């Protein structure tokens, strides 16, 4: 009995060895560390480098404007604010390591910004931007208010920096906000280049604390909460019943919210496809990993499905006004249909991709039943 049971077991095992069909991953092992290396060296670090550069420019232009608040310098400052804000869209999703410890995204981009708090800070002058309670009175949305929202037109805005009683306080606040963005971006970049990169890449195992699992979780969280909901869903009233036109990103610049959204959408898609930052090259990515796992969906594979869905969302968003706030007020249905396209990819990423990659959203014992 003992012998025959063993023979039975072995023969079944052997039989199943020879009977595997063409499905399933091919024999070559997929190098998951290559994904991490590609992300770190060709996407994350270049994106943070670019952001640190543009935030340095932003700071220096803010100092120039504070010294001589002319219309021309205001325009220059607005331009560097726009470039830095666009560059930020490429790093916002990487809220891990140092960025997580610094609450990077919260300090840089909570909107709508708290104009009451900003005015109070400027009047009283005793503020500590490192306090969590000050998150919504700094970063890009606060700069948006200071550069575009103080008055109805440029003359009115410039008056705050030139002729008003506390114009110095305005200069100081502007300088403080831009310095903080610059120092935060430098801190994160330095951390990546001085050790965290190697830690990130070498943590290539499986499990909830591996780099791959954490990154994928962060990425999906960003896509769902900040791209889909923050930029489109919340202003369109998806979660509140009635539209909230004042909740768009870059509210005061009137006409910049769409550019930011498109940049963030590109960044998300590039990250998925492993496309290198500001170059046509590409490397291992979630897309190629999915191809390896060969998760076939209705003839087309999941990686293509997700990639195409990014395109579909971009196509829908082309119809939108450059100023989302105006779009919400004139024809919100276009915002809602953009939201629907973004929503489709939440299902693809969160259900199908997570299942294929076998990544859990949280760590608790579970046996799949």
């Amino acid at each position, binding site marked *: *009995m*003992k012998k025959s*049971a*063993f023979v*039975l*077991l072995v023969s*079944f*095992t052997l*039989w*199943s*060895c*020879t*009977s*595997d*069909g063409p*499905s*399933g*991953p091919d*024999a070559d*092992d*997929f190098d*998951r560390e290559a994904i991490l290396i590609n992300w770190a060296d060709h996407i994350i670090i270049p994106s943070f480098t670019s952001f640190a550069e543009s935030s340095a420019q932003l700071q220096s232009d803010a100092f120039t404007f504070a010294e001589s608040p002319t219309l021309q310098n205001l325009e220059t400052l607005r331009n560097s604010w726009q470039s830095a804000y666009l560059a930020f869209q490429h790093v916002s999703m990487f809220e891990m390591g140092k960025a997580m410890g610094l609450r990077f995204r919260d300090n840089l981009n909570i909107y709508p910004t708290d104009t009451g708090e900003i005015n109070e800070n400027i009047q009283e002058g005793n503020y500590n931007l490192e306090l969590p309670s000050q998150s919504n009175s700094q970063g890009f949305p606060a700069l948006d208010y200071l550069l575009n929202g103080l008055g109805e037109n440029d003359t009115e805005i410039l008056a705050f920096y030139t002729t008003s009683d506390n114009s110095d306080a305005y200069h100081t606040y502007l300088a403080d906000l831009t310095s903080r963005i610059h120092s935060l971006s430098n801190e994160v970049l330095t951390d990546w280049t001085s050790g965290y990169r190697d830690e990130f890449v070498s943590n*290539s*195992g*499986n*499990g909830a604390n*591996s780099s791959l699992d954490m990154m994928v979780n962060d990425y999906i969280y960003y896509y769902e909460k900040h791209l889909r*909901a923050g930029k489109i*869903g919340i202003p369109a*009233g*998806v*979660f*509140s*019943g*009635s539209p909230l036109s004042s909740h768009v990103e870059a509210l005061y610049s009137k006409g910049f919210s769409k550019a930011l959204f498109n940049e963030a959408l590109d960044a998300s898609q590039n990250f998925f496809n492993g496309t290198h930052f500001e170059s046509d090259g590409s490397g291992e990515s979630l897309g190629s990993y999915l191809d390896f*796992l060969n*998760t076939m*969906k*209705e003839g087309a594979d999941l990686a293509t499905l997700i990639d195409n869905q990014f395109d579909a969302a971009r196509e829908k968003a082309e119809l939108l006004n450059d100023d989302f706030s105006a779009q919400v007020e004139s024809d919100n249905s276009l915002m809602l249909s953009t939201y629907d396209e973004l929503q489709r990819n*939440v*299902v*693809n990423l*969160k*259900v*199908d991709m*997570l*299942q*294929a*990659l*076998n*990544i*859990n*959203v*949280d760590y*608790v*014992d*579970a*046996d*799949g*039943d």
Partner: protein
Amino acid sequence: MVISMVRFAANGWIEKLYVEPDFFFSYYGFEWIQPLGEWTRVIFLICGISALLVSFGFKYRISIIVFFLSFTYIELMDKSTYLNHYYFISVLSFLMIFLPAHAYYSIDAWKNKTLRAQQIPKWSIDAIKFLLFIVYFYAGLAKLNSDWLFEAMPLQIWLPSKYSIPLLGDLLQQAWAHYAFAWAGAIYDLAIPFLLLIKRTRIVAFILVVIFHVLTRVLFPIGMFPYIMIVSALIFFDSGLHNRILEYISKWLKISKSFFDNGINYSFPQPWIQKASVSIVALFFMIQLLVPFRHMLYPGELFWTEEGYRFSWRVMLMEKAGYAHFKVVDPENGQRFYVDNTLFLTRFQEKQMSTQPDFILEYAHILEGYYQQQGIKDPEIYVDSYVALNGRQSRRYVNPEVDLTKIRFSLKHRTWLLPFDDEIKGL
């Protein structure tokens, strides 16, 4: 079990699972069982202490009843944490209430001469063997389905992601290995209870038990279960081995084992107690044998509808991922909006909720109550939900046209789910 309780507490799971969440998912018929806030910790403490007392055999009867009640209470608090292993512990401890496990080598027997006995009735050992038999054999039967055997699902999803395990990592990338694991697992489950029962194959069987469970421990996050099953399987060995283990423990603890060796056969204090125990155990097994087959009363695909899935030893059979987006409509003014699940549920609860219909319904009712308090008189609640099962493409799960607030809780077939449109052959 003591270790299990300590592990639970040490991992911070008491707070995470039972104190932090705002809402809990109840079992049908057990809605009155709720976590007690900060007092939940006391239940865990009681459970841990009673487990300790049971293992020392001190005040056995009361301890095992307290253990059964407290452990089961913990399990009934929130069904998001349902695991077959926990159910196994509940069932086993219920069974043990009626068995004289304290007659030998226990503090009770040491203190009470009339209780002390070297031999206990054979049926009481057989009862535990039979329970283990059911667990393994039914788990094996459940594996005889087309997804498991012919698609190697869900192993084909789970195994490749364990690439960093030493030695096995590369092997787990091979399709043939997934099939081998699937077939070996099914054969193991079906054969092992027999191999353990037959004396000649017992030692080989036990080696297989150890290999199998250690392997599952390495590959899957299933906590204490492998160890429990390995130790449980020792029950199949005859008294010779158990005596040797006890002698070893006795030497270590300096207890005189021979003190208990009085050669007496255990007899129940009253004949009616024995009769009652035997009949309850018999009834218990009738139920245990039938309950796992209750899914046959429902139409539709079991893995999809999950009608009759729990409490049936269906272990590690499916990988389900889902997403549920709830829409609240106020019929009075036509206003509609979506719900942010993270405001109500933990990430773990949300994951469980999104793939299981009874959770979806209960959550919809929780939302109904919440929005009624927020001033919507008669909210309608719809859900946009998608589920992917065993590597198939995700598809719509709940009928999006159905107002879930109009659906009552029941054990009847759920007509508000959309069909699976595929077939998984098997039991």
